[in-house]
């Protein structure tokens, strides 16, 4: 039998050589394994960004992976460096860091001196430049031989382009002159020849020219793929192939060798991490349970500490503790979440506030040995103060040791169509049209019918080519960006672990691996995230303290308050964290939460996972007692008991895979990772059969198994584990409590924390006023920059709108205004202008906002007065008296409302629709309050300002429209057929009249639209804002 020569590919680019490589690292590894290569080197250009993905694939496919990198030195030559061991891997990473840090984002700059200084412990393959003429310059080879004695080769890359004979002769010549041995390699850019078209496209995109003008910049053929060993044996003499195996043999490094080393400074000198942690936890126990912790808790603590010690995770908890302690000391509200966060240890360390008395069911599940997960703690900070925390981390550990994880920005449909379309020479106007709405894209694939609807012929060859390339390109990495807050902190310099490069933001650096990569290698990161609601809650606490003198904290809020749950059950939740969205509001009256754990479920259930898994209705039925709570087995009962036998959380689904489908811990871990990365990379499919087979083998129905898999896919869309839901539920409760008991402070805090949440300031204010909160207009005589609380007419405080809401007003001007007012009240506009040194622009903005009403009179007079202030020469006292005061017509109510909206984005006068009510009555329109009284099936005609349009991915093309009038909101459901027919009114209207019928389930009410009319013309110049399709 004819045995083929062994081969190791030593020069191979993945798509992490952006716009060069045309295959994913995983594809390359799989293919190399299938072809029986001895080894595969991934040698992306000055990058190790694809290394971890390749590593994981190689581990699965049992093929040896070599890590290396290709470089084009600024003073020549081009070469590939390969890591042989941990030390040379560190050198390589260091060299890449050096090159990347020396250039702008996405570029690098290296010269021979850098290589000689840093990386001579690697192996080097020289890629001689192909210049015309019979001989090549041996000089770079001599340089290489000097610095890489015995470790440098000349790469022979035969491409069947008609020049191989000459090429081989010249390279052999070069070998004789330099004494360097020759080795075969493939300059691989793709895993299979079929990617040639994509590779051409990438080249055209990289060069910014259409394909037909790219000419000779394209490769002449598709030989730059992983070729079969049969072909290679025909191309190369055996010696050149054998040399690849020898080189591969010298490379012994694997990423498995990387050991993450925790920073040391989180432990006081002289103390051991375990002892220190135990001491802190004991102190915390005393603080949390002044009367002494119950035995159960003490038992849990002992258990958790033992587990942490066994796994060596103490420094991780201490690192997070250190960060949280810093935030606390600065008065920055923060809260941990994630699998490890909801442990008693974290509760004692102050990382979380989830009080175990309230949710005893939650504990003991969050750290477990068998789940084989590294601890994961995300910490949310007040969004406007997170930067302080980030700066603290940089200060404490230094920039060489702390860096943000990368986020790999990948091609999405819009960007892919745009780039491929340009390469194929489509007109910009066509591309605009294709990308304007992506209705032809269903999230997974191109839908030809909808493409036709958008005015493109799916059978047209040009469009077909476009869509083929787009399909291939989707998910390809485009560039590295910084993760929002995922910090890696190491004991030594990070750059010998993973290359660091410059981020787009100046002074920020990012490592070349993303959080999945870090996770896969067991490198730990701490996520420092920003959360607007924390800022709002903090502000509300401050406001309450200032007014009432009592200091609330997250921990001291009265727990399980029935009034709060009653409000939540009414879906009266505008402004409340998480449960304020339209979908959540529709769920609340059905789920009727009446204890903390219900909030945990509420937060998690309105997500793609449970919805796609069809778990929502079964859960609701069981909750209402309409369906018996049953479990297919005792094992399943253990997993699902707390959710009435219906899987709601991501953890439960993974756990189910283990107990019901027989997944091993390792498989379950891989499933979890695949879920996390699914929407970016795909790769869940092969779990499907495994899961279904496994569950059927254990006696579960195939239907149930398929449901579970659908749910897994849903989680891939937007994973939402119980551990996160639990922490979020705390904020839900806190914000709901504030809304219920301190509505004025809550409104004030929300307004001062904008932008955040689901509703605009106008809607927040309307909602608060409907709840009896007195809101007072912005007024230069009393308003600060932020909104403030004033004593109200009754005992409840009133909210005074702040000058920050005034569009176009400069912050500095507002500050001077407030300072001047503290000296003495203003006597008039001239006095204000002079003492606050306001530019006419700022004065104009104040006049437009109506904030001068107290000094100048109505808006028209205010504008006239303000316009009379001389720039840089404010009116002298009394000069305005000399001027004739014109008789200006006061603005009408409508004009005032329009001006309010234009300047402040809201109005405290009547709702715009109240002015139109007579007219609307003639149209036979019900107001929102009247609609709420109608019974199911009643015909209805209603109208309102469009304040939101949504097309949820899980709703099959249904569009939800929220209308607002002076009496409240109406939610409208527009089915796809109606949406198509009434598209113009649906997308264009500011004032929409809807005819349809009532759909009602208990308190949840929708209007099913049959007919839509755009009556925006009635609004005139009113500026309204709709939050659309977010």
């Amino acid at each position, binding site marked *: 039998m004819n045995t083929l020569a062994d081969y190791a590919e030593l020069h191979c680019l993945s798509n992490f050589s952006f716009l060069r490589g045309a295959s994913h690292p995983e594809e390359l590894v799989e293919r190399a394994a299938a072809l029986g290569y001895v080894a595969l080197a991934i040698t992306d250009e000055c990058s190790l960004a694809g290394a971890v993905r390749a590593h994981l694939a190689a581990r699965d496919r049992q093929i040896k992976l070599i890590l290396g990198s290709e470089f084009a030195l600024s003073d020549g030559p081009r070469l590939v460096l390969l890591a042989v061991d941990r030390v040379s891997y560190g050198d390589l990473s260091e060299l890449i860091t050096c090159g990347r840090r020396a250039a702008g984002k996405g570029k690098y700059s290296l010269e021979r001196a850098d290589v000689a200084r840093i990386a001579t412990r690697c192996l080097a393959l020289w890629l001689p430049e192909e*210049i015309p003429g019979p001989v090549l310059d041996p000089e770079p080879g001599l340089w290489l031989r000097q610095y890489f004695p015995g470790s440098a080769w000349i790469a022979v890359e035969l491409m069947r382009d008609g*020049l*191989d004979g000459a090429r081989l002769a010249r390279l052999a010549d070069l070998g004789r002159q330099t004494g360097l041995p020759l080795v075969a390699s493939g300059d691989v850019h793709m895993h299979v020849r079929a990617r040639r078209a994509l590779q051409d496209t990438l080249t055209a995109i990289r060069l910014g*020219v259409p394909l037909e003008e*790219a*000419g000779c*910049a394209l490769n002449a053929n598709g030989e730059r793929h992983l070729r079969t060993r049969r072909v290679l044996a025909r191309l190369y003499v055996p010696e050149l192939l054998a040399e690849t195996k020898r080189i591969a043999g010298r490379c012994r490094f694997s990423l498995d060798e990387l050991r993450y080393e925790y920073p040391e400074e989180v432990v006081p000198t002289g103390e051991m991490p375990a002892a220190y942690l135990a001491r802190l936890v004991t102190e915390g126990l005393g603080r949390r349970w002044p009367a002494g912790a119950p035995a159960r808790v003490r038992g849990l603590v002992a258990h958790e500490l033992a587990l942490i010690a066994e796994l060596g995770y103490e420094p991780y908890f201490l690192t997070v503790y250190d960060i949280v302690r810093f935030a606390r000391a600065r008065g920055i509200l923060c809260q941990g979440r994630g699998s490890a966060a909801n442990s008693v240890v974290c509760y004692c360390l102050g990382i979380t506030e989830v009080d175990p008395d309230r949710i005893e069911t939650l504990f003991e599940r969050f750290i477990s040995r068998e789940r084989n997960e590294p601890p994961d703690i995300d910490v949310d900070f007040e969004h406007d103060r997170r930067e302080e925390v980030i700066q603290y981390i940089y200060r404490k550990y230094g920039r060489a040791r702390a860096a943000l994880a990368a986020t790999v920005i990948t091609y999405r449909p819009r960007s892919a169509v745009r780039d491929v379309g340009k390469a194929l020479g489509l007109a910009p106007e066509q591309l605009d049209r294709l990308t304007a709405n992506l209705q032809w894209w269903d999230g997974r694939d191109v839908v030809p019918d909808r493409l036709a609807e958008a*005015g493109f012929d799916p059978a047209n060859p040009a469009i077909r*080519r476009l869509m083929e390339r787009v399909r291939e390109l989707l998910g390809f990495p485009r560039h590295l960006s910084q993760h929002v807050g995922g910090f890696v902190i190491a004991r030594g310099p990070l750059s010998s672990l993973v290359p660091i490069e410059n981020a787009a933001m100046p002074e920020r650096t990012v490592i070349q691996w993303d959080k999945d990569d870090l996770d896969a290698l067991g490198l730990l990161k701490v996520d420092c995230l920003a959360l607007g609601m924390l800022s709002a809650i903090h502000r509300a606490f401050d406001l309450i303290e200032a007014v009432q003198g009592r200091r609330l904290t997250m921990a001291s809020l009265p727990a399980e308050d029935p009034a709060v749950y009653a409000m939540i059950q009414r879906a009266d939740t505008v402004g409340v964290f998480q449960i304020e969205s339209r979908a959540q509001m529709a769920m609340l009256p059905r789920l009727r939460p009446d204890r903390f754990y219900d909030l945990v479920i509420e937060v998690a259930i309105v997500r793609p996972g449970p919805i796609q898994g069809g778990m929502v209705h079964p859960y609701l039925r069981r909750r209402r007692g309409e369906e018996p709570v049953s479990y297919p087995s005792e094992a399943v009962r253990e997993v699902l008991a707390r959710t009435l036998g219906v899987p709601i959380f991501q953890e439960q689904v993974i756990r189910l895979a283990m107990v019901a489908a027989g997944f091993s811990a390792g498989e379950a871990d891989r499933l979890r990772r695949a879920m996390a990365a699914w929407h970016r990379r795909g790769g869940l499919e092969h779990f499907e059969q495994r899961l279904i087979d496994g569950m059927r083998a254990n006696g579960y129905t195939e239907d149930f198994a398929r449901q579970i898999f659908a749910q897994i896919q849903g989680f891939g869309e937007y994973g939402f584990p119980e551990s996160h839901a639990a922490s979020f539920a705390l904020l839900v409760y806190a914000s709901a409590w504030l809304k219920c008991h301190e509505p004025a402070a809550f409104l004030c805090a929300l307004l001062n924390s904008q932008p955040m949440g689901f509703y605009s300031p106008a809607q927040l204010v309307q909602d608060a006023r409907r709840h009896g909160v007195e809101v007072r207009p912005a007024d230069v005589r009393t308003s600060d920059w932020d909104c403030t609380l004033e004593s109200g007419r009754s005992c409840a405080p009133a909210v005074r709108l702040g000058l920050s809401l005034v569009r176009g007003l400069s912050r500095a001007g507002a500050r001077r205004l407030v300072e001047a007012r503290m000296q003495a009240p203003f006597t008039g506009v001239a006095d204000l202008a002079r003492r606050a040194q306001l530019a006419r622009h700022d004065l104009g903005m104040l006049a437009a906002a109506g904030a001068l009403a107290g000094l100048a009179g109505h808006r028209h007079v205010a504008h006239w007065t303000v316009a009379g202030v001389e720039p840089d020469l404010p009116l002298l006292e009394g000069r305005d008296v000399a001027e004739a005061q014109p008789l200006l017509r006061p603005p009408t109510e409508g004009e005032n409302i329009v001006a309010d909206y234009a300047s402040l984005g809201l109005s405290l006068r009547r709702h715009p629709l109240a002015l139109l009510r007579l007219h609307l009555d003639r149209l036979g329109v019900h107001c929102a309050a009247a609609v709420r009284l109608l019974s199911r099936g009643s015909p209805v005609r209603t109208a309102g300002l469009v304040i939101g349009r949504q097309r949820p991915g899980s709703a099959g093309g249904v569009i939800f429209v929220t209308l607002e009038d002076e009496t409240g909101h109406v939610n409208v459901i527009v089915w796809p057929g109606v949406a198509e027919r009434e598209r113009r009114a649906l997308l264009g209207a500011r004032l929409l009249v809807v005819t349809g019928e009532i759909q009602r389930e208990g308190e949840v009410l929708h209007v099913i639209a049959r007919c839509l009319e755009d009556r925006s013309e009635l609004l005139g110049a009113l500026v309204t804002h709709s939050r659309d399709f977010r």
Partner: protein
Amino acid sequence: MLWLCLHLPDLALEIFTRGAPANDPLVVVCGNGRKRRVALCNAAARGRGIRPDMGLNAAHALAGSLRVCERDREAERVALDRLAAWSGQFTSVVSRTPPQALLLEVAGSCRLFGGLERLKEMVSRGVAELGYRASLASAPTPLAASWLAQDGREACVTRQNALAAVLASLPLTCLGLTAKQSETLHGMGVRTIGDCLRLPRDGLARRMGPELIHILDRALGCVPDPRPAFVAPSVFASSLPLPGAVSTAEGLLFPVRRLLLELEGFLRARDAGTRSLSLSFHHAAAGTTPVRLELVAPSRDAAYLTLLLRERLDRVALPAPVEEVSLHVADPCPLAPRNLDFFAPAQAAEGMLIERLRARLGRDAVRGLGQVAEHRPERAWTYAEPGSGAAVRGGSGRQLLQGSACTSHGAEDRKRPLWLLREPMPLEVRGERPYLDGMLVLGRERERIESGWWDGQDIARDYFIACSGQGVRLWVYRELAGEHRWFLHGMFA
């Protein structure tokens, strides 16, 4: 003084639609990228719900097949100039107020044309025939006339002391204020010119600047408002783009007639006629078909000229659809007939071989060859102007190629035959080897070319240099896909 203002609200649109009526939705857009907005739209687009100032994407969402034209201010300026030249037939004082209005001082010509109403009617009809919609207004001051026309009031004010009352109800937008100024005035509750006039003069001047007062004074005739008179060019040149390319003579007659009407007005203004007209039909695929009309006696009558051209157009062979029509008249002359000079100056003979060959064999029979940066051999060359030898297409590709090692190297070493067959010729295969008057001996070097998928002409071939029995060196290839057939593609010298 009596000023007649022609305000053209749709000029930006009409420059695209004058050549042929547009029944499909059409918009003129301005701005860049995501900020592209509809500036104007035609009736069909309005019917679909498209409105000015709408985002282009929104407009697309409303009309499936929407024609989009980029706003062309230069073309608008040119069109306004031509209309000014045409208006010269009604008065000697025509003044432009860009971007979209003309002012005609008609106090003198009213009587000539049978009164103001008659005159307005003639102007109005004439403008409509040219393909423009205009609103007309007349007033004793140019500004008042402009404002009234701009506001679409077909007013006719003749007495200066009536102006203030008439202008009072006009909106402030007439004043052409900056956004900032109108915002300020709007804030004071000032909505109309009348509101403005009611404000104290000094206070207003101090707040809005003296220009505003000055403008109002000019409009009311309190201060003079001299206008520069337009001076028409001595040569007539005009062109009309055709929205959808036109390929029938009948279809061309419509735009041609509009050009002739324009010409007629131009010539009337100069009290002249012409003896020769040059029409050019510009084709989409480059190239132009010229049509020249010589008249025995000077004329300017559009109806007559249309008649002549209709006959002529029937006989013109159009090689391709026409995208633009232009009309050129270089020598307006007095209408009285004059002797013609039949003898054109003899052309200096050009000694160049190419020209003579071309003259004898036809222009297209003499061509040069150029290189194209392309991997596919059949597309790696092109016809070029003789003697230029330059790459025609793929220019950028060639520049890129400077930095690309493999191809610059290839250009030197890679063997290409001088004679490439027009169509590759299938070769017989005997015993798996190609055969052409004997077995072919293949060279060792294989050149694999796989390229061209993007235009649907993908090739995948292995090329070899082969020796025939007669010792001729041939360039042959084998298909990599399908039946793996052999072809002869070229011969080396």
